[in-house]
């Protein structure tokens, strides 16, 4: 068999496994940043969500996203990857209905598994934002709908040969497709759910600290590690120059964002705050996700710095407007997903890692690319936010989305699962 196919397949599968592993990262960050009384519930959500994504994406999501169709959705080979497809053949030899990925020299199932891992990520982002008050079943249903419809449709627009791809929107590894989509869906959920009991009382904000910084740190390291699959893997081809470049831009943006978020929190609080350092790392990674293959290492330094500042201010802002996001998912994934996508329009340098993109604003390319990126951000935002609102609303009106107040006070672990996470430890009682 073609040696390039073998090598690509190894690369795609190994990086997909790293992206899969990010599920552990999300589970730990989100449980570390919330309270013991809801730990079992959060672990349950973040564990089951990849199973849900696997089935939803297998049954229909993949087809909607990569099936040949119009500019808005895939229409062929919709169910269970059943469309004809003779991958790993490519180019003129390709015969099949998933032509948007026909350039990728790997077997169909390798493409599928890689893309599935990304779909799972988008869904798991929602979990943290709606934590500590959402019904388990309602979350499961929303995740299913999201992986089956919302994510694939946007994915089709940008990566599946849809209208945004056609006008030239660039989102290398998914600042928009994965992270902003997760963020918009989460925002819609938060708005319909309302804040946690006790969070905003008589105009005062009660801070609710998370229960375990070691878990949150494990999670963030695992995510950082996983991002070395997420970004360079998105080449879907073992192109040595591109993947080496992407690894370095990715890591550099994470590094500068860690520093800038730490300094920002230091200035605001008088002390460097680990929670913000961790969120800062993720912010930098989200921001560099779209531009990682299109910008220089020098530019990645600046993208990281801005991401780290943005995430701190954004956390404070959401609290000020009483949008209760227990883990900072909106600040990390939505705000920095948007910023990352826009930053392509600012920092893109043509062919920097071999891919022709045209130059961004700061490299003399004018505002052309920037405008396209902005159009992508806005249209994806409107679509995802609206559709998510509809789905959440539908769930709210049928089975409900929020647990009872009594259950919320006692903890969702008991109410939803009849279980507690640490049955042998003495836990301080919380009063809200």
């Amino acid at each position, binding site marked *: 068999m073609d040696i390039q196919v073998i090598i690509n397949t190894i690369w795609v599968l190994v990086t997909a496994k790293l992206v899969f592993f990010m599920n552990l990262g999300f589970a730990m960050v989100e449980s570390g940043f919330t309270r013991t009384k809801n730990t079992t519930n959060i672990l349950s959500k973040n564990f089951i969500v990849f199973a849900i994504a696997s089935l939803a994406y297998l049954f229909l999501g993949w087809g909607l996203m990569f099936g040949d169709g119009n500019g808005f959705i895939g229409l062929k080979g919709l169910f269970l990857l059943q469309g004809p497809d003779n991958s790993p053949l490519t180019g003129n030899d390709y015969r099949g209905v998933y032509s948007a990925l026909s350039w990728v020299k790997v077997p169909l199932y390798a493409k599928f598994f890689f893309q599935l891992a990304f779909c799972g990520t988008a869904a798991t982002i929602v979990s943290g934002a709606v934590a500590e008050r959402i019904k388990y079943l309602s979350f499961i249903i929303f995740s299913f709908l999201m992986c089956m419809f919302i994510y694939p449709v946007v994915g089709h627009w940008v990566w599946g040969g849809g209208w945004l791809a056609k006008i030239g929107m660039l989102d290398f590894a998914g600042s928009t497709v994965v992270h902003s989509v997760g963020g918009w869906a989460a925002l819609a959920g938060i708005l319909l759910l309302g804040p946690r009991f006790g969070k905003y009382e008589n105009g005062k904000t009660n801070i609710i600290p998370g229960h375990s910084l070691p878990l949150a740190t494990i999670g963030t390291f695992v995510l950082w590690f996983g991002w070395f699959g997420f970004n360079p893997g998105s080449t879907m081809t073992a192109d040595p120059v591109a993947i080496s470049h992407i690894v370095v831009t990715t890591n550099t943006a994470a590094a500068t964002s860690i520093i800038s978020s730490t300094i920002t929190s230091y200035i605001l609080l008088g002390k460097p705050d680990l929670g913000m350092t961790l969120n800062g790392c993720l912010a930098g990674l989200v921001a560099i996700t779209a531009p990682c293959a299109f910008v220089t290492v020098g530019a990645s330094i600046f993208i990281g710095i801005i991401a780290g500042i943005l995430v701190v201010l954004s956390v404070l802002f959401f609290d000020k407007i009483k949008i209760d996001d227990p883990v900072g998912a909106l600040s990390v994934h939505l705000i920095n997903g948007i910023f990352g996508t826009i930053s392509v329009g600012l920092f893109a340098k043509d062919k920097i890692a071999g891919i022709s993109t045209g130059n961004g604003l700061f490299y003399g390319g004018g505002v052309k690319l920037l405008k396209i990126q902005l159009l992508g951000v806005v249209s994806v935002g409107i679509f995802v936010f609206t559709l998510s609102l509809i789905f959440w609303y539908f769930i709210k009106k049928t089975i409900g989305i929020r647990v009872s107040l009594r259950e919320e006070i006692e903890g969702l672990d008991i109410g939803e699962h009849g279980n507690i996470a640490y*049955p042998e430890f003495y836990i301080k009682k919380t009063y809200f």
Partner: protein
Amino acid sequence: MKKIEAIIRPEFLLKIKKELEKIGHFGLTITDVEGCGKQGGIIRNWRGEKYKVEFVEKVKLEIIAKDIDVEKIVKIIINTARTGEIGDGKIFILPVESVIRIRTGEEGDAAI
């Protein structure tokens, strides 16, 4: 001086504290305890099976108060911590012979 010991549901602690502050009482000590009484244990699940936890989590409030304040404090606790359901807890009043503030060495009512 008396010692008031109240075994209450944990979720009422903060409310009681605020009510006590309103009447000018600030000093109290709390301990995490577990209790049993009329209220049976709690049923939980574990890998496919149910089990009962015999003891229920409560908070013990200890307040040393001047004799004249005891009644007021007891009333506040009762009013704030009552749900009417089994498990609301109990209040015990014990005699205290003397109280000393470590910081100043003050004794008696002045030390409360």
